[in-house]
């Protein structure tokens, strides 16, 4: 899916939707409400995904009852909803009223047609920390493929519409856990696996490999891919891109000390979201730069958690950010990650802020365009585990079926499914 075509489509659909549609009037539909009436918000995304995956047409009713979905009223979908405990409401005759309300308000209806092919960039082994996106996809029942460095370097990214970055450290410093967790078996395995992969793919060091992977991902987005990253992947992929010709890795990672003038040599024009960051040079501090506002491992620099608020966009004018912030809650408790938030003064001009902590110098959730594609960065590790520690058990999402933080992740998964219809000229 190409972003430009998608935007044209959304614009066209907004215009077209004021015309009564034959399609709308004759096919009975099920409304999947996404306000507080919903019994499982997260699985509702999976139901909608499976509907469009089966070749059916669905609609995303932006800002209508928490960002509800409209799917065909078919036995198979009713069965799916019943099995998964998802609330649906038949809306045959009421749809005319609903559409009238949508037209008259800051709402819109966006068709969803093509189920995006989802890839999750993650190492083949299990890391001692959970991954919110993987868990959300599994819980919602949205299929995905795990890929890693060999697949990225052999050009497999083009086979996917949407890419999520696991908690990878693209500076190649093993999240700077190398010295802190020295002797832990999971770290030894991580180092061994990365080193072996770098050698196999012809790179001298792991930081060199990760920089190259970061550039491939950058190209993927430029060519129309959708990128979603959380936690430390957000900050480190930009650092890796900006440091294409600079050594920013500590000695333990590549055998050479980092360039003492690294800050001055960083080329931020290559980065997605950030600019002007300063590298954290202490190898014992598991922090990468001053991009992160919270500095969870930064000792005295660590900031307490607050709550972040979603922006209210104009659904008819800004459908993309509107999709990304669909939720039944507007204020969401914050949660730590190795990168928790993004300092405002490190954001590039033109970056769209989707959520922020009011009055704080940082923002939580940002989005932007690159070439034909888009990227979205969401700070923090696990929306339902604000202090997730290494070795903690994975979050059981069946205990958090209404999680507003996880909804933001799933908004990202579904928004590439939005129909792109060429604007009529």
């Amino acid at each position, binding site marked *: 899916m190409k972003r430009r075509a998608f935007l044209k489509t959304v614009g066209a659909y907004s215009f077209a939707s004021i015309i009564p549609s034959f399609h709308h009037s004759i096919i009975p539909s099920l409304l999947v409400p996404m306000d507080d009436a919903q019994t499982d918000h997260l699985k509702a995304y999976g139901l909608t995904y499976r509907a469009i995956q089966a070749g059916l047409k669905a609609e995303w009713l932006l800002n209508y009852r928490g960002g509800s979905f409209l799917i065909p009223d078919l036995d198979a979908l009713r*069965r799916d909803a*019943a*099995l*998964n*405990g998802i609330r649906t409401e038949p809306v045959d005759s009421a749809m005319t009223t609903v559409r009238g309300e949508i037209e008259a308000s800051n709402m819109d209806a966006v068709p969803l047609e093509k189920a995006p092919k989802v890839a999750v960039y993650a190492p083949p082994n299990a890391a001692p920390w*959970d991954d919110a996106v993987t*868990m959300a996809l*599994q*819980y919602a*029942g949205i299929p995905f493929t795990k890929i890693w460095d060999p697949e990225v370097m052999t050009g497999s990214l083009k086979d996917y519409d949407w890419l999520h970055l696991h908690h990878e450290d693209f500076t190649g410093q093993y999240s700077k856990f190398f010295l802190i967790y020295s002797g832990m078996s999971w770290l030894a395995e991580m180092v061994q696996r990365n080193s072996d992969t770098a050698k196999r793919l012809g790179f001298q060091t792991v930081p060199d490999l990760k920089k190259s992977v970061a550039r491939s991902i950058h190209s993927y987005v430029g060519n129309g891919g959708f990128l979603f990253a959380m936690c430390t992947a957000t900050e480190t992929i930009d650092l890796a891109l900006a440091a294409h010709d600079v050594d920013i890795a500590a000695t333990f990672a590549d055998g050479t000390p980092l360039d003492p003038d690294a800050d001055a040599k960083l080329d931020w024009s290559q980065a997605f979201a950030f600019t002007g960051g300063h590298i954290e040079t202490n190898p014992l501090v598991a922090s990468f730069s001053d991009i992160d506002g919270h500095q969870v491992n930064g000792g005295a620099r660590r900031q307490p958690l607050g709550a972040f608020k979603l922006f209210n966009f104009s659904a008819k004018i800004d459908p993309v950010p509107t999709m990304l912030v669909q939720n039944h809650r507007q204020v969401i408790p914050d949660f730590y990650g190795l990168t928790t938030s993004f300092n405002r003064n490190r954001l590039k001009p033109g970056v769209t802020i989707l959520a922020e902590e009011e009055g704080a110098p940082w923002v939580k959730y940002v989005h932007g365009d690159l070439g034909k594609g888009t990227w979205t960065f969401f700070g923090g590790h696990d929306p339902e585990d604000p202090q997730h520690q290494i070795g903690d*058990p*994975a*979050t*059981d*999402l*069946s205990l958090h079926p209404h999680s507003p933080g996880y909804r933001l992740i799933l908004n990202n998964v579904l928004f590439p499914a939005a129909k792109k219809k060429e604007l009529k000229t």
Partner: protein
Amino acid sequence: MSRSIRLALGLIVALPALVRAQAIGPGFELERSGRYADAASVYFTTIRSDPTNIPALLGLERTLFVLSRVSELLPLVQNARARQPDSPALRSLELRVYAALNEPDSLEAIARRWAASAPQSEAPYREWGLALADRRMWDEARRAFLVGRRTLGGDVLAIELAELEQRVGNWEASATEWGRAVTRLPDVEPNAASQLADAPAPMHDRVARALTAPGVSVRTRRMASEVLLTWGQPNEAWAAMEPTLATTDTEAPTALRRFADLAGALTTPDGHRVRGLALARWADMMPGSSGGRARAEAVRELLDGGDKAAARRVLEAHADSNGIAQAALIHLLIADNQLDIAEERLSAPATAITADDRATLRLALARARVGRGELDRAAAALGNDSSVAAIAQRGWIDLYRGNLRNAMEAFRLAGPYALDRAAATDRTAMMALLQRIQQESSPHLGAALLTLARGDSVAAIAALRRAAARLPEQGGRLEVLLIAGQVAAQKGGDQELTAIALFDEIVRIGGEGAAPPAAELEWSRLLVRSGRSAEAIPHLEHLILTYPNSAFVPEARRVLERAKGAIPKS
């Protein structure tokens, strides 16, 4: 004396020290910033005007060592020592300077000269040895300490030798020296035990042997017990401790209390047991109520440790005068299935047991009688107790006799809050079953449930199936079969097939009650447990879609998620 005069005198007294500190202040700052040569210049300047300024000399020791210029310090130290020959600080510094210059002969000569001037002091030998140890000259350091020991006699310098041997890795020798140290100086014991606790695992046996060898002191053995507890060896620890209690000494209570506290960190049955043993001994040494409390705690620990005999011994020795001990002893007898003796003690007219404890014991005795199938004696044990707990217990006795109507009435009277949550849940579940049964009496069902209560699962399954066959399909049969199926599923092994057959039968018959969805959920769980998740999925889907309003649906969804691998195991 006026306040101002006192202040002035105070300033006069403090002035020399103040001036000395101020003089080398810039040197400290330069040292902190890593400018050692500049710092040394400041210290040299200070020494020129004040040759015995010890802070400045120590500053030079630090900075000149970094600058590899220690030789410049020697004449200054010699000069200072000549001016103040009795200063131990200057003597020590001189020894360290010789050690840093790698002149062991001069070092020894200086140490011996110092020792000659202070014939009763350990300090010359200690500083001599430590100066060598700091230079990692282990053998020479050991020799220095041993020279001191030979000269002064006794076990002097044991701490220094213990630490030296530990640094070298001679843990056995270190243990021996720590034993000497604690024998001589009891206050050293916590530090000694803490140091020895760090011994690597392969050395534990040797260290333990050194600390418990024949002839070692009581304090050494007690230290051994602490070290063994730290290593997680409670039985060995008690074996080290117990012989030290043969004769009473003033340190024994403290040692026992410390032992009990350390054992409290262990969660193994042996840990509980030895803690109980220590507390029991400690309680005997304590007067009044604190001894009683400790004894009660000891009994609990002994029971947690599985040593009923020891717990009973403790109780029997003190049961005559103490109500808590009497009650605990009867509890123990009931747990030991010595019901007649327990009943006899409970019925004794002159006991100190409180009314509440007595009621609790009657209930426990009644339950134990039920466990032996002695329903009449169980009812008799309850006497005329009208508490809700007793009413609930009578309900069970009625149920096992087959009197369903009386059982239902008793459960209803007892209400939903009697006893603990598990007991209340059991009663509620049984009431739900009884509501489905129209008959007022069913000796077969009562006997089957009694068999189950007595723990004979296999016989109970067969008896429940027979009892179910006598009930109408929609009049309790499915519910009774469900109990049989649940018992069989829990039993596992060959009984799993029985369980599946029973669940299958219940699901096929279906109907209005809660049994069919419950059976289908149990069936699915059984399949998931045995690694057959794919077979469980259609059952769970059937349950959710067929009984959408059942209370089992949320749990069925959860099991379905697990079966599909959509949520992590927790």
